């Protein structure tokens, strides 16, 4: 079989920087110049194009389906339905196995995949889709998440009953202390559906192999987890499925679930030809899960001086028709439902439900993002009620190292939240509004104001995110490192299955190899499944986990290298291409000792084990690590038109150790921008289970004129359990920027604002 052109290949990591230096990304120049091969650029000789027929209805029965007219269409090579799924008919992220590969007699959300076409031209494939005749029995969609959670008479959406998960958390005795609270505040909060809005739509190539297996080139977040679902559905053993990561155009959780992987493989196996599938933007809105929308009710009781006595919390998360990541989203929302605050009596009930609304699953900060908007709004409300400013009310209740989370878990690493809040407060304020340039004003060049109606507001947000997988999951990572002399220079080849999704992992892998092996030349092997699992590029975990495994594999290589050194030393280290003895100085160059030998070592890295949550009390040591970000937002609001300009976002984040400041700042900027999007514009608008804005014309994401400059304070208080002491950094800023911005809008307008995104009509009333 011909190998695909524009397939991933080894990349030499440029620069010489080790851990802590801002080396440039190996893929950076290619991306800027438009030369980077994304999954949508994959191409193979003689390939066919696959297309997917999707349901126009959120809930309907398929009475009959006639594929014959589509198959008769010239140029069409295959039309497949659920009957053609070779193995297991269902898949599911987290191995929940409840999502049909192709709909079986019934659809449960708009856009559900029903049938596949392969044709010799993408347009032919799309036209053939129109010729698949379906007789529908349309049913009333079940879209009420609260009824799904609480009303036993509400009809069932799928085989599994509602709720998908109810996770209680119980600390102390809320009922006993309720009457004793001097101040009680309540709030009802809502979070709309956010989309990952990654720029590279779902795409990939399946190439049938001579052994009856399949080669898959895909853009995903975790190949080995894909594999666990693809194998059974195709009826193939895992070793006959060879997966290679292709250029990933952003992910943010949206590529954790499978999209076209099984579909393209089915078409390729059926036709014996390579098959490429590539969604367009419209289809992409239906081709991946979104962020769970949430409805939340909070009640806090406190003493007059602002010390919280109890929290009574109910969180309902709508996961749509299939389980996807809902179980873990509920776990995060429950365990982090009151955030980084010490509260002696806690009652949290978090629910994840099935409905016929759009399917929801993983997105940056999942579960924690929704809760953070509510608990931070509550902190401001409590502060107001007690006459205490936002920073002080948070400091009054702040957790720190040694505090217990709501789950009872003791925070084992430094958590200098009080200092971080003070630091955020004390940062210099941005200059007052300069309305001589309308681009500085809300509305910008659209000229809605020359300064009339504009008021400034300041708000704070604090977010606590669990890093790595929780609740007893061993999401280990594997790395293989090979050291050899190439062209007279010691060179390391780093091979992992970890997905570079734009976050800069490959840069960091190379930096770690340089630091641990004392060399400059590092080459990154394409990520594939010819090496063990690296776990998912999610939960802010890859620097920690794959960073840890690369470090461990490098140490194993180094130790073998030391055995080749003549003489007995117990004080060797590697630096500058040399083997150095602490007592005797430089012993030899690595090249001289290595000669033409190749040293290759593979290592797994496992994090500190965690436990599940008690099903009744929610107690347990459930999280590997927690990480904190504090935001201060300054906004200008046109209170008459309800338009917002975020003037500045300042962030104080503790990352334990800065591996690469340039990449890290990019993560904090990006996470903050995504939180800004949720605060003021990003929402998939749904009515009766149907998406009303599946395009970038109406699903708005922030532009450079919406995202303000940032002031960053990055702290390095090491976590003793983590490699280099680092903390995952990608998600925390996504949590805290949303409530900070909304708090600032409240400050400017005096409005209560209980829903994100805040729309102009929420401000004008």
């Amino acid at each position, binding site marked *: 079989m011909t190998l695909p052109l524009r397939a991933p290949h080894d990349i030499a990591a440029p620069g010489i920087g080790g851990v802590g230096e801002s080396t440039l990304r190996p893929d950076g120049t290619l991306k800027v110049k438009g030369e980077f091969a994304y999954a949508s650029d994959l191409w193979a000789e003689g390939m066919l194009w696959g297309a997917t027929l999707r349901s126009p209805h959120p809930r309907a029965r398929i009475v009959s389906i006639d594929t014959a007219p589509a198959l008769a269409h010239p140029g069409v090579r295959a039309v497949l339905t659920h009957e053609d799924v070779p193995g297991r008919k269902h898949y599911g992220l987290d191995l929940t196995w409840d999502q049909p590969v192709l709909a079986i007699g019934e659809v449960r959300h708009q856009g559900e995949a029903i049938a596949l076409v392969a044709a010799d031209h993408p347009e032919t494939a799309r036209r053939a889709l129109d010729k698949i005749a379906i007789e529908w029995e349309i049913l009333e969609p079940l879209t009420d998440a609260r009824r799904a959670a609480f009303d036993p008479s509400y009809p069932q959406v799928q085989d599994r009953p509602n709720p998908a998960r109810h996770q209680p958390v119980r600390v102390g005795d809320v009922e006993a202390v309720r009457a004793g609270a001097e101040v009680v505040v309540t709030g009802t909060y809502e979070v709309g559906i956010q989309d990952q809005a990654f720029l590279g739509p779902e795409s990939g190539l399946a190439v049938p192999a001579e052994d009856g297996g399949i080669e898959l080139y895909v853009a995903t977040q975790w190949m080995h987890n894909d594999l666990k679902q693809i194998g059974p559905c195709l009826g193939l053993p895992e070793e006959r499925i060879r997966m290679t990561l292709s250029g990933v155009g952003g992910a943010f959780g949206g590529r954790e679930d499978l999209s076209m992987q099984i579909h393209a493989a089915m078409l390729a196996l059926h036709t014996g030809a390579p098959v490429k599938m590539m969604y*367009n933007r419209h289809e992409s809105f239906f081709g991946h899960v979104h962020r769970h929308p949430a409805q939340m009710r909070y009640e806090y009781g406190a003493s007059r001086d602002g010390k919280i006595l109890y929290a009574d919390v109910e969180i309902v998360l709508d996961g749509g028709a299939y389980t996807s990541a809902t179980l873990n989203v509920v776990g995060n929302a429950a365990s982090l439902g009151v955030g980084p605050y010490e509260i002696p009596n806690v009652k949290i009930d978090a629910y994840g439900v099935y409905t016929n609304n759009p399917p929801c699953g993983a997105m940056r900060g999942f579960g924690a993002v929704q809760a953070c908007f509510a608990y931070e709004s509550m902190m401001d409300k409590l502060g107001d009620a007690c006459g205490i400013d936002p920073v002080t009310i948070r400091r009054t209740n702040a957790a720190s190292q040694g505090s217990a989370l709501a789950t009872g878990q003791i925070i084992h690493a430094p958590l200098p939240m009080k200092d971080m809040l003070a630091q955020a407060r004390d940062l210099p304020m941005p200059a007052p509004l300069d309305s001589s340039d309308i681009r500085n004003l809300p509305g*910008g060049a659209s000229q809605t104001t020359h300064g*009339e109606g504009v008021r400034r507001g300041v708000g704070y947000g604090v977010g606590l995110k669990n890093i790595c997988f929780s609740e007893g999951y061993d999401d280990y990572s594997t790395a293989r490192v090979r050291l050899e002399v190439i062209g007279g220079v010691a060179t390391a080849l780093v091979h992992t299955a970890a997905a570079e999704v734009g976050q800069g992992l490959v840069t960091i892998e190379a930096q770690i190899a340089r630091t641990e092996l004392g060399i400059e030349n590092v080459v990154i092997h394409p990520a594939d499944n010819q090496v063990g699992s690296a776990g998912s590029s999610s939960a802010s975990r890859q620097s920690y986990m794959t960073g840890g495994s690369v470090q461990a594999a490098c140490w194993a290589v180094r130790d073998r290298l030391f055995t080749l050194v003549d003489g007995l030393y117990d004080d060797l280290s590697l630096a500058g291409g040399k083997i150095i003895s602490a007592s005797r100085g430089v012993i030899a160059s690595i090249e001289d000792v290595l000669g033409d030998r190749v040293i290759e070592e593979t290592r797994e890295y496992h994090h500190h084990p965690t436990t599940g949550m008690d099903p009744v009390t929610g107690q347990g040591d459930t999280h590997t690590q927690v990480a904190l970000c504090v935001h201060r937002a300054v906004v200008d609001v046109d209170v008459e038109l309800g*338009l917002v300009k975020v003037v500045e976002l300042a962030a104080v984040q503790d990352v334990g150790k800065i591996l690469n400041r340039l990449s890290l700042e990019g993560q904090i900027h990006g996470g903050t921008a995504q939180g800004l999007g949720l605060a003021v*514009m990003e929402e998939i*608008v749904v009515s009766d289970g149907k998406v009303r*804005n599946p395009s970038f014309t109406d699903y708005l994401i922030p532009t450079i004129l919406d995202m303000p400059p940032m002031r960053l304070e990055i702290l390095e208080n090491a976590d003793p359990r983590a490699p280099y002491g680092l903390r995952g950094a990608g998600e925390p800023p996504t949590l805290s920027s949303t409530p900070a911005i909304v708090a600032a809008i409240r400050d400017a307008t005096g409005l209560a604002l209980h829903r994100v995104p805040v729309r102009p*009509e929420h401000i004008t009333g």
Partner: protein
Amino acid sequence: MEFLRPTTWAEALAAKADQPEAVPIQGGTDVMVEINFDVHRPPALLDLNQVGELATWSREGDTYRVGAGLPYVTIIEELGGVLPGLAQASRTVGSPQIRNRGTVGGNLGAASPAGDSHPPLLAAGAVVEVESRARGVRMIPAHEFYLGVKRSALEPDELIRAVRVEAARGPQYFSKVGTRNAMVIAVCSFSVALHPGERRVGTGIGSAAPTPRRALEAEEFLAGELDWDARLDSAVLKRFGELCSRAASPIDDVRGTADYRRHAIAVMARRTLTWAWNDYRKVRAA
């Protein structure tokens, strides 16, 4: 799909006459999006980019003739002084890339109620110059051009050649509400143009009715009530806002609610008239 490439205006008119179902394409920023989304599969595209004169502007006395193919960026750079309302609206269109390609001719051809050039053309009293091989030139006043959602007075065998706008004799303003600070389709928009010679104020409302439209009652009200030698009376201003708002007939959609649009039109009407009035008084005082 056929791709027709006339190089002169006469050839373009002939092509359109022979094949009225051919879809003209200028900047392509609407046409290509629709083709991409498979909204239309036109049998032919009529590319007007080779007809050089369309991408130029000229002056005839006090009237500026803006070629249908003149990109927004040129309007902003070269005509901002004489056609300020249109230039401000042009500045709000899309992104730099879209402003490099997109044209007023295309905006008129698409006749979307949300098109940003329409309100300033209405307020300034512009005239659309269209032509067919069979019937020659027709001059259509902007307020008679828009017939319905994405429907205009253009006949199938006609092409838009230019839009004629008088050089501003008084201040003009354009204002557009969107839910993002750039690159956004209007939730609603408003334009005002003072015509001191006629003691008249022109208006244009965008994205708040099936077509762009003038707020006629509001214009008549000002013609009667406005004291051109005095400061703006706050009661007059308030009433003007209300009448503009009443002239709209907006809907609830994914971009905004009808109530919000009515409210925002009133705010923009008051603000733009105030800016224009202050400019006017400043110039007179100087």
